[in-house]
């Protein structure tokens, strides 16, 4: 599948693993619950590891491991749940997370400009034809009143 990362369309290398799926090789992403349960194994994984967060999860649970996590996926169950905007900000602003932060799920393409300003640098589109919409929406505004965080 294709996604947007750093304003470019690229192929997604991550395979999402369900909580009960066997560990696979290659780049994988897991839920926060699985990360907590299988932490040692996952830290030893040869390829990249990502963690998928829901709005109600707390990023502070990952604080100690952030250097070892390549991707954090913010999974929107509902576009109106703005907690993930603050989670993204905390990841960059508080924990200085350097890896990929990716929006996924039911966010609106119209929210991507805001998301990009709180540290989200990758977007998984709900459908393929959103790729270009997102690229366009990312530059809806050329001005802003608040600092952005990268």
């Amino acid at each position, binding site marked *: 599948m294709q996604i947007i990362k750093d304003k470019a369309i690229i192929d997604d290398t991550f395979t999402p693993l369900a909580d009960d799926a066997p560990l696979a090789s290659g780049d994988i992403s897991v839920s926060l619950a699985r990360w907590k349960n299988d932490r040692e194994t996952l830290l030893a994984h040869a390829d990249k590891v990502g963690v998928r967060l829901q709005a109600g999860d707390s990023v502070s649970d990952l604080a100690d491991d952030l250097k070892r996590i390549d991707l954090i996926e913010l999974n929107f169950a509902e*576009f*109106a*749940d*703005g*907690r993930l*905007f*603050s*989670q993204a*900000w905390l990841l960059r*602003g*508080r924990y200085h997370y350097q890896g990929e932060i990716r929006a996924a799920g039911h966010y*609106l393409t*119209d*929210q991507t*400009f*805001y*998301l990009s*300003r*709180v540290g989200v640098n990758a977007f998984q589109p709900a459908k393929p034809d959103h790729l270009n919409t997102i690229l366009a929406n990312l530059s*809806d*505004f*050329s*001005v*802003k*009143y*608040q600092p*952005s965080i990268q």
Partner: protein
Amino acid sequence: MRLTSNYKPSMYQYNEQDQTLVEERAAQYRRQTEDFLKGELSEDQFRALRLRNGLYIQTHAPMLRIAVPYGLLSSRQLRKLAHIAREYDKGYCHFTTRQNVQFNWPELERVPDILDELASVQMHSIQTSGNCMRNTTSDHLAGVAADEIEDPRPYCEIIRQWTTLHPEFDYLPRKFKIAVSGARHDRAATQLHDIGVHLVKNEAGETGFRILVGGGLGRTPIIGQVIRPFLEKKHLLSYLEAILRIYNLFGRRDNKYKARIKILVKETGLEKFTEMVEAEWRQIKNGMELSDERIAAIKAHFAPPAYDQDAAHDQSLSAHLAADPAFATWYKYNTAEHRVPGYRAAFISLKAPDSPPGDMTDMQLDAVADLADRYTFGEIRSTHRQNLILADAKQADLFPLWQALCTLKLATPNIGTVTDIICCPGLDFCSLANAGSIGVAKEINEALDDMDYVHDIGDVKINMSGCMNGCAHQSVGHIGILGVDKKGAEWYQITLGGSSENEAAIGERLGPAVARDEVTQAITTILEVYVNQRQQEESFLDMVKRVGITPFKERVYADH
């Protein structure tokens, strides 16, 4: 007569960046509307986007709410509103309790054009509804009030910019409102906002902010509590950010009736909530300070206009007051003290007995714009009691101003009296209403057509909402009237003793709701009890405090 083009009102003037932002926002919304009409956005998705541009869909048509930042309008902007009322609506608009303007009949397809029109005069409808940070409101006498510690408007503008398109806080659990007051007497209802900001002096004589949190009206009215007694000015935005981040992360999202910050504060407890905010704040405050230069640059926009130093030497005012009792009455009720000698703030009453509270026609809007240019510095303000003010009227100009307002039906001498009713649109326009409110306001007006009696009653604030949502702040009215539904019929719950000012209080229920055909009688009875039982100069509110609701209750329900 002064030349209209030679002076500018002392209000914030957009720079290139501000202008670009409102234009880009209007363009974004035009695209969103097209996407919706093409079926690319669902009802639900478009709803969130249109609300953030002030567009509700209600009983008869969409309703568009336009931001009037902390109540300030230029004459040019007022003329634009007149134009919009004429071209896109049915020739009138409505001023709200949050100093904003609403149009009741715009077409969804034409709203993008309206937003372009607004952008051309430095206006917009950004974040006037939806679960986001709303228009910041303030004291309608800001900058001219005699009891002012410091002009709140520069801080309102700083907050306006910070809240506008804030990337992190646009999808909050619920709507979020900030009010700022710079005076000793709170005319901005800061205790009833999600955040209240109050300019205060500390013991060292420095000016800073007292920050209140968790106030709000609606279904569960709650009075805000002090979260920080003194905040240095430079930390204003970091402190707001800390509160908003805690609210955004921890505010309830499972039940929209429990989603306001007031519930989070209540359920967490003020002490714990304060700790959470302060802990967040300590981590962000360094590096987010407002510089003195920035504060000074914003303040420069609000520099006092060129007041006439000789204004107080005028002799004509006292002559007119002596000669014309009707003018003297208007002067007494509809003008307020100004800190510059020889000037008054002149209210424009939008509470004529025969028109819906807060409504204005396009013709009136244009005429008031002309009066503002002719007699003041071209600035008009909206108040949270749904009236307008020309804040800088020279005393010598008051008489001709009054005459002009009389012909426009904008001089009803009832500011601060019992017929200066705050009223929501109710059943006439609102799909959520249980009961009518405009009709009741009209009936109360008819019952109180004796102006001498109205003036004798003095300061009584009636606030009336058509349902629990409380758009007209009925819970803080001295007399509150709330429309309730009883088996499909319109009934009214009356409360007494509420206030939104320094002594903020939530009104107490008088008793069971009264029927539609009894409500006006109930109100006049309450007023009679007051007139008969008050002591000397005692105000209505003071009497309710002294005697409680019982004497009123006994009379109102006597025949039941």
